[in-house]
């Protein structure tokens, strides 16, 4: 009786394996997600994760991704880097051990530094969004920039800020690691090119109370303080303490968009008062807003508020298109070659262009129209849409 039951169970298992095996093995495209899912940059990491999961779910809802003769089921695997280089390197190794070839993320420069050697060693194609001066380059042919850094968008924003607030001097504040210094130095150069005296001040990442640094900033007597690539929560505290100390000038942010977080922590528009910032996308554009409706429809929940999500959606969709056209889910060089030939035109973001040749020496940076945010006397102005300047 026991032997008979065991045989029946074994038979059932075999039947199940036969029934499900070929379907599972047919074609599965697994996308890696790498970002700080916890820690100070968690909202940027959460935006990547939400975007890639949405892109995967959207492709699956359409019957899977067409790759050659097959329809591939798109899945994801996420790793938390805690916004560190070692975390990103560990994530790269973890993804390699799963045989994953296509990676979206990370965001901050130390993470980018950590993952690139691992990705190169394992032939991975990586889309990242670091503002580091060496984020991409000819030595990393399989690394693409999901969105441009300040070298592309800082100049038009500074021109708008100078015209609106009459800036003559600015202090650019950022953390003292590569994630801060690379961006702050580019921002400062752009200010100087526009005839604005720029000073940089750096702080140790992990600083919780900015009151001493605020005292030092105020000794420069600037017209504006730019929080550059400071973590959103750091920037919020910095703004709050600047205003408490009596700073009346404008607040700039030529770095990762984090307006909502800064407003929440600093105390709202009446505290922020006069400000200008880079916005990843022209968020008021109805075509851009449509991504949030589609996200809710496909995922059944609201999308994260951080607008970096929209850029990651665009990058993910472009990557899937290139994989489909290249007809392979394993040959990253072939996919990269196809990707370089793609027209930068997204259903949500509109027509963009490939950039990067001038600043990085390689034309692998996707630049879509972006937004210029402006707040005057506590009143939020409509986000201005700006096209990425031609190189």
């Amino acid at each position, binding site marked *: 009786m026991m032997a008979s039951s065991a045989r029946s169970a074994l038979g059932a298992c075999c039947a199940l394996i036969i029934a499900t095996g070929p379907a599972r093995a047919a074609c599965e495209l697994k996308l890696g997600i790498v970002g700080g899912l916890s820690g100070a940059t968690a909202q940027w990491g959460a935006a990547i994760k939400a975007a890639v999961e949405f892109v995967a779910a959207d492709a699956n809802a359409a019957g899977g991704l067409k790759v050659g003769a097959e329809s591939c089921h798109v899945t994801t695997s996420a790793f938390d880097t805690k916004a560190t280089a070692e975390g990103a390197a560990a994530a790269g190794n973890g993804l390699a051990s799963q045989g994953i070839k296509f990676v979206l993320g990370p965001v901050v420069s130390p993470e980018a530094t950590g993952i690139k050697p691992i990705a190169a060693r394992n032939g991975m194609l990586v889309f990242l969004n670091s503002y580091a001066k060496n984020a991409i380059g000819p030595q990393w042919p399989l690394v693409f920039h999901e969105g441009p850094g300040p070298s592309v968008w800082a100049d038009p924003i500074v021109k708008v800020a100078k015209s609106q607030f009459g800036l003559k001097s600015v202090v650019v504040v950022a953390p003292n690691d590569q994630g801060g210094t690379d961006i702050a130095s580019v921002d400062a150069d752009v200010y100087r090119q526009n005839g604005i005296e720029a000073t940089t*001040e750096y702080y140790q990442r992990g600083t919780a109370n900015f009151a001493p640094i605020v005292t030092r900033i105020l000794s420069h007597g600037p017209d504006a303080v730019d929080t550059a690539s400071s973590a959103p929560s750091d920037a919020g505290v910095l703004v709050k303490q600047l205003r408490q100390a009596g700073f009346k000038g404008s607040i700039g942010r030529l770095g990762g968009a984090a307006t909502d977080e800064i407003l929440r922590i600093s105390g709202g528009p009446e505290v922020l008062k006069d400000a200008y910032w880079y916005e990843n996308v022209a968020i008021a554009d109805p075509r851009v807003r449509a991504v949030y409706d589609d996200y809710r429809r496909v995922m059944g929940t609201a999308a994260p508020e951080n607008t970096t999500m929209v850029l990651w959606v665009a990058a993910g969709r472009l990557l899937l298109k290139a994989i489909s056209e290249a007809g392979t889910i394993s040959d990253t060089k072939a996919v990269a070659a196809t990707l370089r030939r793609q027209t930068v035109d997204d259903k949500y973001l509109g027509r963009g262009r490939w950039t990067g040749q001038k600043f990085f020496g390689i034309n692998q940076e996707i630049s879509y129209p972006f937004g210029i945010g402006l707040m005057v006397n506590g009143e939020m102005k409509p986000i201005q849409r700006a096209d990425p300047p031609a190189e």
Partner: protein
Amino acid sequence: MTSFVTATLIGVSLGAQYALLALGFTLIFGILGVVNFAHGGFYVLGGYAAYWFVSAAGLPYPLAVVLATLVTGILGYLFELLLIERLVDDHLATLMLTLGLYLMLSTGILITFGPESPLFEFPLNGTLRAGPFYFPIANLVVLAVCLLAILGVYALIFRTDLGRALRALADDRQVAAAQGLRPRLLFPLAFALACGLAGMTGALVTPILSLAPHVGDPVLATSFLIVILGGLGSIGGATVAAFLVGLVEAYSSVYLGGSKGALALFVLVLIILVVRPSGLFGRIAREA
């Protein structure tokens, strides 16, 4: 001169906050011999508990601070009683237990409240100004409460039977136990007191800075630095070191900048530890 006075005010304010944190940290080490890696977690939990009591339960902020202190204290009591107590003499095990608790607390908060900072404001706004000098009213209130709490801890430790019992256990657990003191009863109380202090600091400080799941990370590092500088287990040492660190941090950041300032602080700590390896007020070796 303006910068010097401003830096002094900031340094004293920082020192009071650090002292409250470091007192809890050093109490646990001094009495139990446990390095509590979850200390930053209780700080964050205190902040989120106060935020929840204000925003979801609609309670006034002062009551929320009291309740947050109680919640973190009770959690600390249960954690010690149910987990730490079983392995209290195994330093590696308690290190892993407290580190694990910290990860659970911060991840739990991240899942529950999300990665973004919530809107959690101190009920009093405004800044006191006298010429070029300024002091935010919220910071003044927090400074006053921190100083009162520090005095309260001193009174508890040095003026009550409970404090005497805890100090006796810290001095020599076996002799204290032979005198009739019960570590199994007193250790959870000491842990609750320390965690309650961390939670209260979180409830007080996060509305004037920021509240996010990760804000406990630097708290642990700062507490560790202060307690080592003051002498592991020394209450007086932790208090003096906290104000010293606060002032050095303020002066060095103002005059040297954020990067060199942080370096100056660690260089100073290094020099003090070279001259006095057991810290400013530490004993040569811990016997308990």
